[in-house]
């Protein structure tokens, strides 16, 4: 079964066409990277797949559930990490994880297990007892990543997962994503850091001005355009 199927997806904001009839598919357990510059349409695509925005036209299926008519079912199996996400500042890190786990857990025991998993992912230890408002950007990002992965979602939608993080934090976040992918979570991520996407992704789509210009594995794309990395591929494709 395909994890995600996107067909002729279009999104207009008034006169502005943010996404223009794009098509792509993601296999189960795959890490799929959507790469492109700022304003290319990455965030809008991710928001649509995550059920936050409604498409102007086109079809989206997540694990066979149709976007629009089966949004509730999609929300139960996905997890979304927005690029500029924050957490409730008057809650502690632990309080935040406990609150979010409350939406997925079947009972108190299940909730405890979910939060335990999140604590393991964050590696924040006792700092989880502190209020989120005292966290650094890196700590907040780890907390949010843990929140999105603690439920072992079937599809994790990650918008710029390492955006604004330093080298060490980015490295740790990338390893966490890889680890979860190995455990069966399908990942749809976006980034304008093409080297990062090349390292993480099994398959990538190059998007610019709302259109997908090229799609394939990093190895195939590099070979096709005789490039050393995806950055060179993108420049070649756009030009």
């Amino acid at each position, binding site marked *: 079964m395909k994890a995600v199927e996107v067909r002729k997806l279009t999104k207009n*904001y008034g006169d502005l066409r*943010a996404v223009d009839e794009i098509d792509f598919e993601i296999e189960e357990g795959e890490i799929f990277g959507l790469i492109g510059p700022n304003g*290319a349409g990455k965030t809008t695509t991710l928001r649509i797949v995550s059920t*936050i925005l409604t498409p102007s036209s086109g079809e989206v299926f997540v694990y066979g559930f149709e976007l629009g008519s089966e949004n509730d079912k999609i*929300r139960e199996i996905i*997890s979304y990490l927005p690029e500029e996400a924050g957490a409730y500042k008057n809650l502690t890190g632990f309080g935040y994880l406990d609150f979010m786990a409350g939406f997925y857990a079947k009972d108190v025991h299940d909730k405890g297990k979910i939060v335990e998993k999140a604590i393991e992912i964050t590696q924040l230890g006792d700092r989880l007892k502190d209020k989120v408002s005292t966290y650094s950007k890196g700590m907040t990002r780890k907390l949010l990543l843990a929140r999105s992965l603690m439920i072992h979602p079937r599809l994790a939608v990650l918008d710029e997962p390492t955006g604004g993080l330093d080298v060490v934090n980015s490295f740790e976040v990338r390893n966490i994503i890889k680890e979860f992918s190995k455990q069966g979570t399908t990942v749809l991520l976006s980034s304008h850091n093409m080297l990062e996407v090349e390292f993480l992704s099994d398959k990538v789509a190059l998007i610019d001005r709302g259109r997908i210009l090229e799609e394939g594995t990093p190895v195939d794309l590099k070979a096709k355009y005789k490039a050393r990395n995806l950055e060179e591929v993108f420049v070649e494709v756009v030009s």
Partner: protein
Amino acid sequence: MNKFFNLLKKDTKELITVQLLIPIIIVIAMYSTIGNIMGSEMERATRPQQIAVVDFNGSALSNQVIDMLEKSNFIAVETGTFNVEDSINFARKKGINILVAIPENFEEDVVNLKQPEVEIYSIMKGLSVRETGTSTQVEAVFNVISNAISTNLITQKFTGIPPDVIKQPIKARDIVVVKDRMAQASPALVAQSAMNFSIFIPIILMLVTITSSQMIASLIALEKQNKTLETLLTVPVNRNFILLSKMVSAAIVAIIVTAAYLFAMTRFLGISQGPQASSDVMRALGLTLTTGDFLLLGISIFFAILSVLAVSTILAVYSEDEKSAQLMLTPIMVFVMIPYFLTIFTDVNTLSMPLRVLVYAIPFSHTFLATNNLMFGNVQFVIYGIIYQIIFSFVCILIATRIFSSDRLLTGRLRLARRRV
């Protein structure tokens, strides 16, 4: 349902912050302190007041005047000197702020109807409100003396006639009429008795509506400001539950805040007991609320809160952060204040037709007007008001839920800023 309570707990926690609690605690403490000070000052004011007296006449009449002062809640202290300056110094030393000087030919002048001048000195130490209260005491002293003398004169000139009959040859009997009922009471007493309803219910309503409005706007705006909204929209919970949770927690916190402020105000004004003495008059006039009336009032308050929550939600969706959300609420404040002031200072029925239509179009007006209408038996008017409030609330809630289920929740602010794609 668990998911809803999970949201409700978080939203309520988010609203009950130190920033919210500190001003409430300060206001309660401040009002309680001022109330206690005022209470003790009033209690002191009712105690017998000391006044210094220097009697240059020493006649039977001047002694009679001093006796009357003693009987009228004053303690007359003889200065023990016949010099005004020394008497003033004496009063100052004793902390007395009024000195009465009875002139030398006092009795003789009174008998000959020459209107002798009794000098009343007010010894002021400052210009505070307490000092200005001295003038009331001076007036009281003058009235006591004047009354004593006139009683004496009348007794001498009209033997066998009670002096009060000459002083007040007629008596007034106040009768208040309300519809087909009447009771012996002054309109001032009735107005004072109705104060709990005519003043306090509008204050409660104003506080609840404005606070609920601010609370829900804060909750929605904070989700945007803290960038938690997007995540919340992807969790497996019905979006209407997200909205409902915010409305319920805003209403809960608003009621708690209002109760706290009301408690502080009753402590300040010392009227928590209510006017018990005049309750018989109010009952006789039918100016009391029955259980049914209270039920209608409760329904009206409920729908006023619901309306304000729904309208505030719609406005808050278009704000970017908490500050802009509070600005967005300005029209609501105005629409709450209009009926609030009108019900306190005027009768809406005396307004011109366009103004009346405007007032009746504001859903909160009907709750502000409900108490008076229920007291005066205009139940039908209150029921029509509630029907209008129900329709208004449901239309607004429908719009709010539509917005909450649409992209506008996320992109509403984007019309003002650049779209991020």
